[in-house]
């Protein structure tokens, strides 16, 4: 038993070197060749980092395409979902309130045009995407807030839709909003 324990400890030590020093060092070294050098892909504007391509951020002003509701309020150091069950009455009241708010902020839009993701929180609270419909349904409001031609904003969204051979089509909200700012800067 005592020799067994000694063997176990020595093997553990050797495995620590192999799995926890050599293996991560190798992955880290190769990551230097990857986009973002393993730091996460950052997006800058005017020389200042404004976000990570893959990490969603909060957009709730009318002149931006709004991102999804978030249980983490887009705090990217505390990811979490809402963990609300599908029949929870308090939760359903919150969803109803989100839908009503959206319809009020987007006059002319019917409830049936509002896709599910705009009134439900994502799993991570940091979802960087919207479905194409989730962006298109906001075009009229954004165009009005920026006094832009609806068709131009619509075309911009169409450009930003990423289609995939498998899996859902999507729009990266940060990239879309940066493109929008490039088209016509938001007025504060």
């Amino acid at each position, binding site marked *: 038993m005592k020799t067994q*324990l*000694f*063997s*176990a400890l*020595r*093997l*553990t*030590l050797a*495995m620590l070197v*192999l799995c*926890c020093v050599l*293996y*991560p060092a*190798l*992955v880290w070294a*190769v990551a230097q060749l*990857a*986009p973002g*050098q*393993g730091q*996460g892909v950052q997006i800058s504007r005017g020389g*200042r980092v404004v976000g*990570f*391509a893959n*990490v969603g*951020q*909060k*957009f709730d*002003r009318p002149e931006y395409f709004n991102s999804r509701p978030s249980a983490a309020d887009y705090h*990217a*150091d505390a*990811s979490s979902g809402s*963990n*609300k*069950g*599908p*029949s*929870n009455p308090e*939760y*359903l009241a919150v*969803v*109803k309130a989100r*839908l009503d708010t959206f319809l009020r902020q987007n006059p002319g839009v019917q409830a049936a045009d*509002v*896709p*599910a993701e705009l009134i439900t*929180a*994502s*799993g*991570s*609270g940091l*979802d*960087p*995407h919207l479905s194409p419909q989730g962006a298109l349904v906001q075009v009229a409001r954004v165009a009005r807030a920026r006094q832009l031609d609806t068709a131009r904003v619509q075309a911009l969204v169409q450009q930003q839709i990423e289609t*995939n051979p*498998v*899996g*859902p089509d*999507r729009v990266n909200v940060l990239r879309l909003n*940066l493109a929008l700012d490039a088209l016509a800067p938001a007025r504060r």
Partner: protein
Amino acid sequence: MNKDLFGILLIFGSAVLLAIPLGRYLATIYRGDKSWTDFLAPLERLLFRAGGIDANRGMTWQQHLVALLTINLAWFGWAMLVLCTQGSLPLNPDGNPSMSPDQAFNTAISFVVNCNLQHYSGESGATYFSQVFCIMFLQFVTAATGMAVCVVVFNALREGTADKLGNYYNYFVKSITRVLLPISLAVALVLVFQGTPMTFQAKVPLVTVQGDSVSVSRGPVAAMVAIKELGTNGGGYFGANSAHPLENPTYLTNAVENVALMLIPLALIFAFGYYLKRPKLSYMVFGVMTLGFLVLLGPAVYYETHGNPAIAQMGADQRLGAMEGKEIRFGAAASAYWGITNTVISCGSVNSMHDSHMPISGMTELLGMMTNAFYGGVGVGFLNFFVFVIIAVFISGLMVGRTPELLGKKIEAREMKIAIIVALLHPLLILTGTAMSAHLYAGNPTEYAGWLANPGYHGFSEMLYEFTSSAANNGSGFEGLGDNTPWWNISTGIVMLLSRYLPIIGPVAIAGLLARKKYIPESAGTLRVDTATFGVMVFFVIWIIAALAFFPALALGPLAEHFTLY
């Protein structure tokens, strides 16, 4: 929507197609035959020398268990040490604190037993040091532990009589050097090129486009996520696990991670056939497991893609499915598929929040863990299945009036007792734990108000899920449960311990006892276990023993919730 269904077909297809050659390879290396990875032999010799181990010494089943339990004890000590002191150790640029003793106890057990239940969030509850040197380390070695004992059982089922069942350390080390490390490396490289971080720098503070100040957590994520999936561990780097956009940035990474977690449990099924040179046995096992898997998958995909009827009633568009707790880049179908694969296989990582799934999906996820033998975790899934095979052989033997035999070995009272104890332990731990929690909660709902994020039937499901996940060594959760309290940390800790080691000790003991028995060559009267008939028998034994025991609990939780919604 069709693109989404095509996506999950593609994931399943690639997993099976990769698992077959991997199974053949596993059989080759465990048998010690010549293989193209023999260039790693010097590294293995170095590891054996470091441990002072003679890798050629045959071990009896008792010696295997002593070796396994001893090294597991060493890992537990190491994990406790790291988690309780992580705040003062190096590689902690975010300045996160050490864990409280009860949380460290729960976490150490959770990772030593390959469960990966997490009562902390990686961003704030762990450090880069503990993530790499404690958690990722255990994700490698506990997966290898499961694979090694699986090979011990393979050895016992070979023809003839045997006392020595190979060398534990040999199987353990080879599982790491020749399987887990190389495949993890490949997966990690896909991840870093898709945007998963692999850095030791601190989180980045930044001001967003709209002017909010946030910090973006990161770390050595890619290396850990690869083995998290491949070793069916499931403990995420970040709190949101594989729903987090840095842990699982694209549909491609989602597919790769999902294939990785299915790979070894599937490959071990095929390795079984190659190892014993009885491929038909593999087909029987694969058939039964796949049937069970599909029975659970179907309803989950249906209900997740059809959305929440309560939200449909408000008039909103539900064509994307039930999107609460889901990410746009995966969609409802791939999220449901992930949920089922991660519960039938005891991986337990999540790419959407199971607490927000529709009730029937939640129930099929629970059933995946309650049966725990449709694929199952690395190595141990096969052991669970083996227990059900023993029971099925015994029942079939009684039905036709013959002495029950499995592969030329008589199954007698001693083996049956062990098999039944192991099979009944699972419902016992789950239902007792849930009942005690429900009793505590019902006795004082104000004191325990922090436990449940949802009222009514769903709240009950949250407690049931926590114990099921602990007992299945799964590690996923209905995370609305406020589980970082002494009650949950200690009770689930004990359940995880019992339900890891007893289901390993039991089957290894059965296998060891069988291996010593006289070998009876096959004759016309032998019950053939590699047939479809026997497969159907095993299938129903699993459902009757594993699933029906839980029916009352499921009726109180997910079923009751379902009928309030629909």
